């Protein structure tokens, strides 16, 4: 993930914050809903209150059965309807449209039923008057005595009592009693025509009463339904409020728990996520301080620590390089110091040897000359006894002097330089210079000199004088080895691949070196020249010099055809001990 540290921080903080906000919002929404539901409960309770008011008036109306109470009831119903219409459409929808439509329908039904009941009550009162009138006439008729004997006055009076009871109680008992009386009256009708209107009017009244009863039942049912609807709504909303109230603390608790657990978790995770690369850097610095410079910071995140790790690694690269070059320098320094010490040792040893050799050499030379002089003198004088013995003794002294001479010369050989003063040398011009020294010899011996130079050779860093000495010796040997021949000097690189070693070959057309002594030519005091012509040290010194300059020398030769010396010279001389 390519997240910056501040992105990570925002995420780490945002998640717990989001949880907190979510909890808060949920609580707010719930509380708001609860408040709203409380409003609904109030509305429902109000309606229920009014319905109860209507019911009270209904009872009054049923009791008094007059217009006055009927009007009061109607007014109350109108009031209920009016209140109902003030409730907003939104509230109606939220509480439940079907509740309201049922409520309205029931109100309407209630209203119609109350009207019907009132109408019935009016008919009842007319019918009641009629019954009373007919009763009074029948009573008067019975009292007048013009009726048949089957109709007794007592029965009529009894009937009237039953009639009054029924009007008063309107219950089943009084109705049953009245029915019984009416049944008896029915039996009397053939004997009493005057009984008929009364019986008819009573029957009518009974049927009206029954109708009223039914209507009243219906009205009460509707009233109950109204009460029930409002009660249901109120109960339902209350229940909702309760469930919300029960739920809210749980939500709050859950959010708190979530915050307490997830919050620290996310913060911890984010912190470790941010700190992880830094921690890794710290681990690496520890390892580095223990000396392991090969450590590098792993780059996993592309945040601000990315560039930190990058520059850290770059710094380490530099540090490691510096460390390595430092170690190399120290190693080089150590080597140089060793070489220097060795060189110094050799140099002082050389100086000492040279000093001693010099000191001995001069008296040695004197002894040599004195002995020589004695030899000369004795040799020139006439024979005398023991002359030969004397001469032999002198030869013995001369031999001893010679032995000493060898020793001192060897010691003086130490005087050769042990260090290499480095100059930049162009090998071609060096060879020209050297052959220049030998111009006269070459001219006198009418030797042809051929140069076969490669032009673009790298310059050599080496000791010029020693190199001159090397080629001087070889070329001088070549000159000594022939009369009117050819010397061909060739320069080039030793191999095509490398430009480290320069190869110089010096070919002559002299008498050549027999194969059996080729291996000896670089040995000290080995010479093919006549006694006294060569020291036997030339090629040995040359060999030593070439080796000391880090080069190599080899020879190829065929008798009577010529000799070629191959000299390899490193472009950069490094002093080596020989």
């Amino acid at each position, binding site marked *: 993930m390519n997240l910056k540290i501040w992105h990570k921080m925002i995420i780490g903080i945002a998640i717990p914050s989001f949880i907190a906000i979510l909890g808060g919002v949920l609580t707010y929404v719930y509380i708001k809903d609860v408040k709203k539901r409380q409003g609904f409960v109030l509305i429902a309770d109000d309606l229920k209150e009014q319905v109860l008011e209507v019911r009270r008036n209904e009872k009054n109306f049923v009791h008094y059965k007059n217009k006055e109470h009927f009007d009061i009831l109607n007014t109350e119903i109108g009031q209920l309807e009016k209140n109902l219409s003030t409730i907003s459409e939104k509230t109606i929808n939220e509480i439940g449209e079907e509740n309201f439509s049922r409520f309205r329908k029931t109100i309407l039904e209630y209203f119609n039923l109350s009207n019907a009941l009132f109408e019935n009550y009016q008919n009842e009162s007319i019918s009641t008057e009629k019954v009373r009138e007919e009763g009074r006439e029948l009573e008067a008729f019975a009292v007048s005595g013009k009726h048949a004997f089957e109709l007794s006055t007592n029965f009529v009076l009894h009937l009237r009592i039953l009639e009054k009871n029924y009007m008063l109680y309107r219950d089943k008992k009084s109705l049953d009693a009245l029915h019984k009386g009416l049944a008896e009256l029915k039996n009397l009708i053939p004997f009493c025509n005057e009984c008929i209107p009364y019986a008819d009017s009573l029957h009518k009244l009974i049927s009206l009463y029954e109708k009223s009863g039914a209507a009243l039942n219906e009205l009460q049912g509707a009233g109950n339904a109204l009460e029930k609807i409002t009660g249901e709504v109120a109960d339902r909303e209350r229940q909702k409020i309760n469930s919300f109230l029960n739920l809210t603390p749980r939500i709050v608790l859950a959010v708190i728990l979530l915050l307490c657990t997830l919050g620290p978790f996310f913060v911890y995770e984010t912190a470790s996520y941010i700190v992880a690369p830094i921690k890794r850097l710290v681990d690496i610095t520890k390892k580095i301080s223990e000396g392991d410079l090969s450590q590098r910071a792993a780059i996993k995140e592309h945040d601000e620590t990315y560039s930190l790790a990058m520059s850290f690694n770059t710094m380490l690269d530099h540090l490691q390089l510096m460390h390595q070059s430092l170690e190399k320098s120290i190693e080089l320094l150590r080597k140089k110091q060793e070489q220097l010490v060795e060189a110094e040792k050799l140099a002082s040893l050389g100086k000492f040897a040279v000093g001693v050799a*010099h000191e001995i050499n001069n008296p*040695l030379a004197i002894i040599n*000359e004195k002995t020589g*002089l004695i030899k000369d003198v004795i040799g020139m004088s006439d024979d005398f006894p023991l002359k030969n013995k004397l001469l032999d003794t002198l030869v013995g002294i001369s031999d001893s002097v010679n032995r000493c001479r060898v020793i001192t010369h060897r010691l003086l*050989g130490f005087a050769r*330089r042990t260090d290499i003063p480095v100059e930049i040398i162009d090998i071609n011009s060096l060879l020209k210079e050297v052959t220049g020294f030998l111009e006269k010899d070459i001219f006198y011996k009418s030797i042809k000199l051929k140069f076969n130079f490669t032009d673009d050779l790298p310059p050599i860093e080496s000791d010029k004088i020693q190199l001159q000495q090397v080629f001087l010796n070889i070329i001088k040997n070549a000159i000594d080895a022939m009369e009117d021949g050819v010397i061909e000097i060739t320069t080039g690189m030793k191999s095509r691949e490398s430009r480290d070693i320069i190869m110089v070959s010096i070919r002559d057309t002299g008498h050549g070196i027999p194969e059996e002594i080729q291996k000896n030519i670089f040995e000290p005091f080995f010479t093919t020249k006549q006694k*006294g012509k060569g020291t036997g040290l030339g090629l040995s010194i040359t060999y030593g010099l070439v080796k000391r300059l880090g080069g190599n020398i080899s020879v190829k030769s065929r008798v009577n055809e010529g000799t070629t010396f191959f000299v390899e010279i490193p472009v950069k001389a490094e002093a080596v001990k020989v």
Partner: protein
Amino acid sequence: MKPVKVLIVDDEIEFATTLAERLRLRGYDAKAVYCAEDTFAIAKSDTPDILLLDLRMPGMSGLEILMTVREFAPNIKVILLTGHIDLEEKIEGIRISNFDYLMKPVDINELTEKIDKAVGKQSNVG
């Protein structure tokens, strides 16, 4: 035939005088001097054919003496006599003249050979 005039220049008096005597026994007109001044004096008055020159001398070195002598006796031959020869001296010597050299102690026959070769004469003793 005129004997070859040899001048030996060496601060070792015993060596120089003995060598001169031996050369004289061999028919050379040999003289010995021990310092630069004497060398110049003799070289000017009676120019020798050849100088036998020690390279290492107190005061002026053999090469310096040689160069000075060359100024007024340009054709003088020279053989260096030395304990040993330094490379630089050798190279320098080659530059100054077509010299020859011998390491001390010298073999008298070798020396006379070189002298004769240098002055272009056969040994007048042999």
